[in-house]
């Protein structure tokens, strides 16, 4: 990457501290006046070595680690891993468990989209909308907490099924929450398509046509907002999506406004599917028995995470630990579009363009070394960190 230092252009380093979302990534943006001429991204600040770490843990332990790849879409990682391992082990999971997995996945999508919607509103300087959407998001967080006991990292999956059942007494309160959210989503749709100031920040900003979206390899709502007809839930239905089909949400205009609209409209599909699942929840056991060792083989599993297509490749060598788990998250596919889209725009539009793909850096980066060092003289190793954790909790309980 060459840096331009001519009389006209100037390079602005942004980050690694929260360029848009509160997550680390470093951007170097070359500007001529206010116009972006070139952009460069440096990732890896939240890379935790999860792919490598899976090789030294058992199949069960890995479930809990992979769920922690992302704090927002934790369920989708756990579910994809379980579906893939169950496929490798040739274990058939009950229809009820699969439906509950989809239920959690769609609730997670609502919470993820609402969170993103708030961040985007905040980036646009529309803090009232940000607070509204985050307040309303609490509704879906409460539903998730009621179902699983947790707001994030619900840990609903286990190999061979799910942990939590949906009993009759809870259905009503979930439906109440969904009704409220649906009403609010209609209101948001109206706001984002009529508010002049918000439109100023989104209308015809960061426009990407269908061809560009395909060439840049974008996935998920970012691609669908440019008219790319691709949703893994429809193309390759997994879990219970064949019983509870989804209708695709598309928009052809390809700008930031379209990305907002696609995500909001997608929520209606989620509400519809959640109602359908609650009404027609199949019966069956929650779990089936899984072998401790998974037979030799390889499998590929693709799912539609809130941010787009998530890809897992798992290879087993017949032992109780996987030989290789490859995770390709949606943000890495969308990230390159930011770099290309930013060029030609105002520097001031960069945060919005970045927020427009709903970036998730911890999805992106999965590795950083165990050696923690700081500027003074003390450096922690994994063992020391572990010891610190133990000591800390001992002192707290003492």
């Amino acid at each position, binding site marked *: 990457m060459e840096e331009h230092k001519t009389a006209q252009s100037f390079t602005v380093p942004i980050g690694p501290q929260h360029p848009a979302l509160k997550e680390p990534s470093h951007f170097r943006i070359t500007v001529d006046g206010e116009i972006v001429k070139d952009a460069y991204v440096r990732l890896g600040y939240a890379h935790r070595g999860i792919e490598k770490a899976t090789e030294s843990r058992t199949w069960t332990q890995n479930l809990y680690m992979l769920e922690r790849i992302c704090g927002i879409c934790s369920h989708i990682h756990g579910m994809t891993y379980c579906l893939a391992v169950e496929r490798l082990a040739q274990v058939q999971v009950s229809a009820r468990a699969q439906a509950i997995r989809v239920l959690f996945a769609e609730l997670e999508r609502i919470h993820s989209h609402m969170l993103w919607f708030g961040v985007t509103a905040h980036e646009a300087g529309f803090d009232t909308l940000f607070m509204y959407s985050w307040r309303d998001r609490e509704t879906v967080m409460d539903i998730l907490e009621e179902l699983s006991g947790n707001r994030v990292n619900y840990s609903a999956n286990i190999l061979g099924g799910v942990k939590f059942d949906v009993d009759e007494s809870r259905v009503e309160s979930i439906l109440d929450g969904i009704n409220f959210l649906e009403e609010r989503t209609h209101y948001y749709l109206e706001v984002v398509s009529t508010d002049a100031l918000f439109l100023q920040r989104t209308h015809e900003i960061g426009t990407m046509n269908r061809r560009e979206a395909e060439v840049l390899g974008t996935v998920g709502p970012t691609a669908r907002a440019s008219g790319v007809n691709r949703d893994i839930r429809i193309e390759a239905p997994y879990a219970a999506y064949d019983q509870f089909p989804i209708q695709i949400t598309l928009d052809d205009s390809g700008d930031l406004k379209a990305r907002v609209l696609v995500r909001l409209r997608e929520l209606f599909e989620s509400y519809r599917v959640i109602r359908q699942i609650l009404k027609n929840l199949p019966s069956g056991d929650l779990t089936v028995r899984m072998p401790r060792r998974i037979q030799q083989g390889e499998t590929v599993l693709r799912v539609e995470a809130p941010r787009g297509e998530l890809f897992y490749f798992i290879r087993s060598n017949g032992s109780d630990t996987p030989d*290789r788990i490859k995770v390709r998250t949606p943000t890495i596919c969308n990230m390159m579009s930011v770099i290309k889209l930013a060029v030609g725009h105002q520097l001031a539009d960069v945060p919005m363009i970045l927020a427009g793909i709903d970036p998730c850096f911890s999805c992106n980066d999965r590795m950083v070394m165990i*050696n923690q060092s700081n500027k003074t003289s003390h*450096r922690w190793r994994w063992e020391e960190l572990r010891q610190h954790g133990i000591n800390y909790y001992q002192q707290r309980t003492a």
Partner: protein
Amino acid sequence: MNDTEKTLKTASQLLEQWMWMTEVTRPEPNRLDARLKTSDDLIPIVAGLRVIRLGYLCAITGLDPGLESGELEVLYHFCVGEAVITLRLNVPRQDGCLPSLCEIIPSAEVFERELQEMFGIRIEGLRNPSRLYLPDDWPEDVFPLRKDFDQDKLRSYVTLGDC
């Protein structure tokens, strides 16, 4: 399933007949694996898949079959609908090298840069071959996703105060 079958049939025709050296297998109902004999076949085959608009590059997976084989394996996954077409290539562990797909598929860049730093397979023709995930001071010859990666050896590279 019919669409998937049709797609996989088209792909296997392309791969088997056009490139007579490739071996084609069906590990799962929705998957087709083609083992390429040399990396010279990679660009023509990918171009062929692009010409008939068969799928998009979904991911590139690196595999390490172990030290004794002396090789690494690279998997290019192309997806269309439910179907996954995988091109598999073996690359020598020492000085392994692959051509970049960026000329045909620009979005391959990030996957190739990840493969390059994690497995130590040099990708020729990358516009920006710099590090994607690993820190700037990561040692040149340590590749974390290889099976012989040694954490203790890595520690010996890092000394106090060079952060």
